[in-house]
């Protein structure tokens, strides 16, 4: 019983971690019409940079603080490029896939195909855990959990309550009309891209603190994260947290029940089952309507 409770707790934590990685994806798909494999390049790029800095003695938590502003710049720059090329969703999918492949190739050249992990000496947070009764919560994952929930709630409040958010949602429906109403849509999108770049940067630092890095690591995450995005409803920041948690808990419980092979399939299965039962996602998409 304690096993299952611990599995559920770890599942919730790791699920929120998935959500932090996937937040940028869901925002990009929902509001910027970009299905962004490049986001993985941002995440793992920051991961490798963190590895380099941390092995040189910089505290990973310091890197975490730096990652947000730098991530903002990267995200905005990335949006700038996509915008300049006039890519629609389908072409952005192929284009950013190319970007990811280039990133993987480059990181193989620079960091080789070996596993890279920050040594424990430089990264004491990897082993720390808070204990509540019989349950243990790893520190890094508590950090990612709070960050994911905080960012998701903040972004969804901004999108729902402020004029900027309303303009962004309106632009998904009808861009010309929103512009005619006086909203500088492109600037708002740039800001949103900056936010999603910041989440990507922070997520990258946390990935480096939690896992070993290798050039093809992104491939392990793609299915899982897009499953979380689709389950949660495309463009829905709180939804992606829920979607991530469903997958995380599913994986952890399958692991405890002894089905290791199944555990790795949970993401794909959750995606398929979710699409079959609720094609519009667990929660509604950006506009509360079905994606065509």
């Amino acid at each position, binding site marked *: 019983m304690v096993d299952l409770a611990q599995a559920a707790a770890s599942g919730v934590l790791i699920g929120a971690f998935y959500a932090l990685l996937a937040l940028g994806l869901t925002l990009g*798909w929902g509001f910027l019409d970009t*299905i962004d494999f490049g986001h993985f390049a941002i995440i793992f790029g920051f991961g490798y940079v963190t590895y380099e800095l941390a092995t040189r003695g910089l505290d990973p938590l310091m890197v975490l603080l730096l990652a947000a502003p730098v991530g903002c710049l990267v995200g905005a720059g990335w949006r*700038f490029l996509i*915008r*300049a*090329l*006039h*890519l629609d*969703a*389908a*072409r952005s*999918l*192929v*284009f950013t*896939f*190319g*970007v*990811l*492949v*280039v990133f*993987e*190739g*480059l990181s*193989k*050249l620079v960091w080789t195909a070996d596993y890279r992990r920050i040594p424990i000496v430089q990264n004491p947070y990897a082993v720390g855990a808070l204990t509540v009764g019989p349950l243990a919560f790893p520190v890094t994952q508590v950090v990612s959990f709070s960050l994911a929930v905080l960012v998701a709630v903040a972004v969804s409040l901004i999108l729902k309550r402020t004029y900027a958010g309303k303009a962004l949602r309106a632009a998904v429906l009808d861009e010309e009309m929103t512009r005619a109403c006086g909203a500088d849509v*492109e*600037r708002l999108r*740039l800001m949103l891209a900056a936010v999603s770049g910041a989440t990507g940067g922070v997520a990258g630092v946390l990935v480096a603190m939690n896992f070993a890095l290798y050039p*093809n690591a992104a*491939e*392990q995450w*793609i*299915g899982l994260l*897009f*499953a979380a995005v*689709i389950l949660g409803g495309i463009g829905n920041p709180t939804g992606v947290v829920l979607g991530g948690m469903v997958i995380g808990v599913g994986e952890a419980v399958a692991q405890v029940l002894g089905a*290791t*092979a199944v555990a*790795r*399939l949970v*993401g*794909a*299965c959750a*995606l*398929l089952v979710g*699409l*079959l039962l609720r*094609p*519009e996602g667990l929660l509604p998409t950006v506009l509360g309507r*079905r*994606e*065509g």
Partner: protein
Amino acid sequence: MRRGALWVVGLVVAGLLAVPTAIRSLGLPAYYLVFLYFFFFWVAQATSWNVISGYAGYFSFGQGAFYGAGVYGAAVLIDRHGVPYGLAILGGALAGAAVACGIGLVVFRLRQIRGPVFALVTLAVAVALHSLVNNVRYLDGGVGIPLPKLEYPWGLSDVGFLYYAGFLVGLVAVGVGWWAYRSRLGWGLRAIHDDERVAEGLGVPTFAHKMAALALSGAVAGLSGGVHALQVRYVTADAVFALRVPLLVIMMCVLGGRRHWLGPVLGAGVVHAINDRLSGPGLGQVSEVVMGLLLMVVVATLPEGIYGRVKERGVAAGAVGAAVIAVATALGTVLLDALAIGVAAAVILLVMPRGVPRGRRWGRGHARDVEVADG
């Protein structure tokens, strides 16, 4: 088919059938046969992808799933059950078709799954299959399957047999691609590509057409994967399900052109000729970077592929390519290097824009507003 076209096809087939004999009697290196085998392999894979993702527009990242099903279908049949390799290859085709039908039966029942969502679902299936193969002992279990050295009929060597087998599979694949392009199925698929709802309203049986296209695609990919298992001889999940296969296949079709059966053949030729020269020891990563960059450039500048341009300036491009190859060989370059350079030169000529593109303001600018105002 027109008489002239029939002659061309006949000549090409006869010429390619004669290649092994010619190479043996001229004493040229056997690597040319391996080079051509890989060309046939990529033609088959790219054509398979194009039937569903090009004609019907259902963009897929799951080529690795069909191809992997073929490779593992054949490998498991040979290694675990001692099935003769001919039957095992057909078993690979069946496995590919079965995976495709499985995906289709679930996915095509849901109208929502199209466009990007379909692409991601296929990717998820490929990843799931990868970890399934890695974790189930009967299929692989993470150790790989070594295949025994096989005896081929008529005293053929490995390389010779694989050449003919690959050629046959490539021919079948192009035949399937050609038929699916010309037949009623092809018209239906193109209608689905343009607007699925309208197509359905006009009486195109969209579900049946998509299932047929996906099953054909899976069968061809599996067939070619089955032969490839014999070429690889040591099958590992990480190599089979790597993103390399879908990447190169997408690359070939996007570059070649996705709306015609010749597109993937062209694309396979170009990409393979260049990529082969980049795949020496230590160059794998470089090739990945180059191919990724090429994909980015092509998608951003020429989303329709070079097939349309071949019609316009194919002769000029061919002449330039041939001239470059001739000059390069005359200067003492190895034939395959010269070929890669020549192909690259021809492609650059094809990709070049028609005129000077109208100036667009970069940056946060309002290019779209300008276009609207002009139009």
